[in-house]
């Protein structure tokens, strides 16, 4: 168990900073957020992960008070804030493009909220210095916003909210505008800040890597509903729906039909006619259409037929190498024409694999997942 999961366990049930029940928001006929319920324990890093347009921003804006839900309730520290104006809610928001006030200095940006909260002026300087130190920008108070780099702006935006000690901090894809290398750094930095301030974070993103790396709990959202809520490991290893399996992490996806079922193991024939074994969480009628998910890293490549008994073992031809350093992959093709992407282990043996060569890939039935096709997945019940 990772430390994040541990943190959640320790606090769970003690007290919730934020809870929503059956929250819905429609734009005309269209349900942007559709009966979403969840609760977040105090001090947790909670992410909402979903593709573009699934309703993440709408949900967050309802929490902040910028949008009024059609139905449902929002409880912060146990009391409903449905009729509280955004400037009175004990939540703060970090906007996607940060929304730092360009006409004010860093210190003035931070002081804005303090003034509004009625903190006596003489205390401002000390509070500002303290929060700037915590976000590792000591002495930056007098800088103009346009003098800061992307990552520094990011930290000022967070400091501006955290100085107010909100019950919940809402973050709307705050790393979206940063470039790749900086994003990697900020992921770790954000997690550190959350731990340091011990504030509940609600973080929305469409980047699964961000959600997995930082969060204690992740909700996967699709078409206005939560598909699954769980720890990153649960989502990655035990997705409950085909959507979660496909969205979280890379996967080879194949359409197929059930040919046989024995116990937890079913036999599948893919559309290309390849016969594969997979585990299945639920009983599936013979002949029913399914989608099979196999992660690239579970397949083992070998130049000769593996000795150990494997549930699935295919002889394939190498199509090409997708070289990406530690993340290199091989594209291979079965005799039937099905293409698989296989992670390339970081051992020198495989560097010499050339297109056209014949190799073997193998994996256990328990390492792949399958889900019935076209069954509308049910939304998560209240957690």
């Amino acid at each position, binding site marked *: 168990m990772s430390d994040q999961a541990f943190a959640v366990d320790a606090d769970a049930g003690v007290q919730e900073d934020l809870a929503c029940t059956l929250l819905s928001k429609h734009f005309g006929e269209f349900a942007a957020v559709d009966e979403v319920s969840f609760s977040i324990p105090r001090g947790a890093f909670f992410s909402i992960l979903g593709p573009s347009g699934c309703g993440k921003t709408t949900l967050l804006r309802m929490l902040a008070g910028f949008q009024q839900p059609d139905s449902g309730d929002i409880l912060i520290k146990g009391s409903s804030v449905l009729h509280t104006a955004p*400037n009175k809610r004990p939540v703060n928001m970090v906007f996607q*493009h940060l929304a730092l*006030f360009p006409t004010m200095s860093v210190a003035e940006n931070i002081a*804005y909220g303090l003034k*509004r909260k009625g903190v006596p002026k003489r205390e401002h300087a000390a509070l500002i210095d303290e929060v700037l130190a915590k976000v590792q920008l000591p002495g930056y108070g007098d800088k103009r916003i346009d003098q800061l780099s992307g990552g520094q702006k990011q930290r000022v935006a967070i400091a501006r909210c955290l100085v107010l000690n909100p019950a919940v901090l809402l973050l709307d894809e705050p790393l979206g505008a940063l470039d790749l290398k900086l994003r990697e750094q900020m992921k770790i930095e954000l997690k550190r800040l959350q731990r340091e301030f011990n504030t509940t974070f609600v973080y929305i993103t469409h980047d699964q890597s961000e959600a997995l790396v930082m969060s204690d709990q992740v909700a996967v959202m699709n078409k206005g509903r939560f598909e699954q809520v769980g720890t990153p490991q649960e989502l990655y290893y035990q997705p409950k729906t085909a959507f979660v399996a496909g969205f979280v992490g890379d996967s080879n996806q194949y359409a197929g039909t059930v040919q046989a079922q024995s116990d937890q193991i079913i036999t599948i024939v893919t559309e290309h006619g390849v016969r594969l074994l997979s585990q299945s969480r639920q009983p599936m009628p013979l002949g029913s259409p399914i989608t099979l998910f196999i992660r690239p890293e579970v397949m083992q490549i070998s130049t000769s037929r593996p000795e150990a008994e494997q549930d699935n073992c295919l002889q394939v031809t190498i199509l090409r190498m997708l070289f990406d350093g530690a993340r290199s992959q091989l594209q291979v093709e079965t005799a039937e024409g099905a293409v698989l992407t296989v992670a390339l282990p970081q051992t020198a043996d495989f560097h010499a694999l050339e297109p056209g060569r014949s190799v073997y890939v193998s994996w256990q039935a328990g390492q792949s997942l399958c889900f019935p096709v076209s069954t509308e997945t049910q939304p998560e019940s209240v957690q």
Partner: protein
Amino acid sequence: MSVEPGNFNRTQYRLGFWLLLAPILLWLSLLIILPHIDMVLVSLRERIAARQYAFSFSNYTAFFTEPLYWNTFVRTAVMSIIATVLTLIIAFPVSFYIAKVLTGRPKIALFILCLIPFWVSELVRTYGWMILLRETGLISGALQWLGLVDQPVEMLYNDVAIMVGLIYTSMLFMVVPLVTTLDSLDNSLIEAGYDLGGSSWHVMRSIVIPHAMPGIMSGCIVVFMLTLGNYLTPTLLGGKNSLWFTEQIYTQFITRFNWEQGAAFGILLLILSSLIVWLGLKITKQSFTRVMS
């Protein structure tokens, strides 16, 4: 167009473009600079005898020594400043509404409503008001019919009529720059203002207005200059009491055929109004290039 391919957005100005633009720029500036040089020359001479003129500042000293002219200018400037401020006060909520609250059709509709004054010639519009406001006009009649007054009232020929006319004529010139700057204000900045605990008033004062400052200033400059230089509206609506500085200029040129004095007034109008704008910018600590860009 003789745009050199690909270099159109580089600071290497190309010959072809300059050849095309030079006459236009020349025309634009000559048509404003030449007449003014000419006016300065005319304004600096004094008639000493028939067809005889001598260099003199008398036309300028006349402005400062004759309280009439000076007072007229001050009155015009004060009225223009009031009109500018009132226009700003009326146009700001309208612009905010257009830029930040409305979307789609209602937004366009309200914006077009502000354009309507342009649809009708200033002259015709002013006559429309004269018909409406005069003693025998609709409003006077309506007031009598309602029994609010017992004899016809004259609503024309006073400062209020001038003010209403000026503000109406100026609305668009204030709304356009305001809507432009307010449109460019990221909504999330306003939301952040609320989110961090600001009331509507705080958000307006510390976020919206500072951002809109260039728009406010450029709107005010344009409206002030247009109002100060307006001729038809104050003259027609003001009647016997109009007393607008441009009317003085008109009178000098046409009725008095005293071009020397008229030219001096024209130059003084330009200098003094520029001075007022400059002072306004100084006081509000704005820079001209920032405001105008």
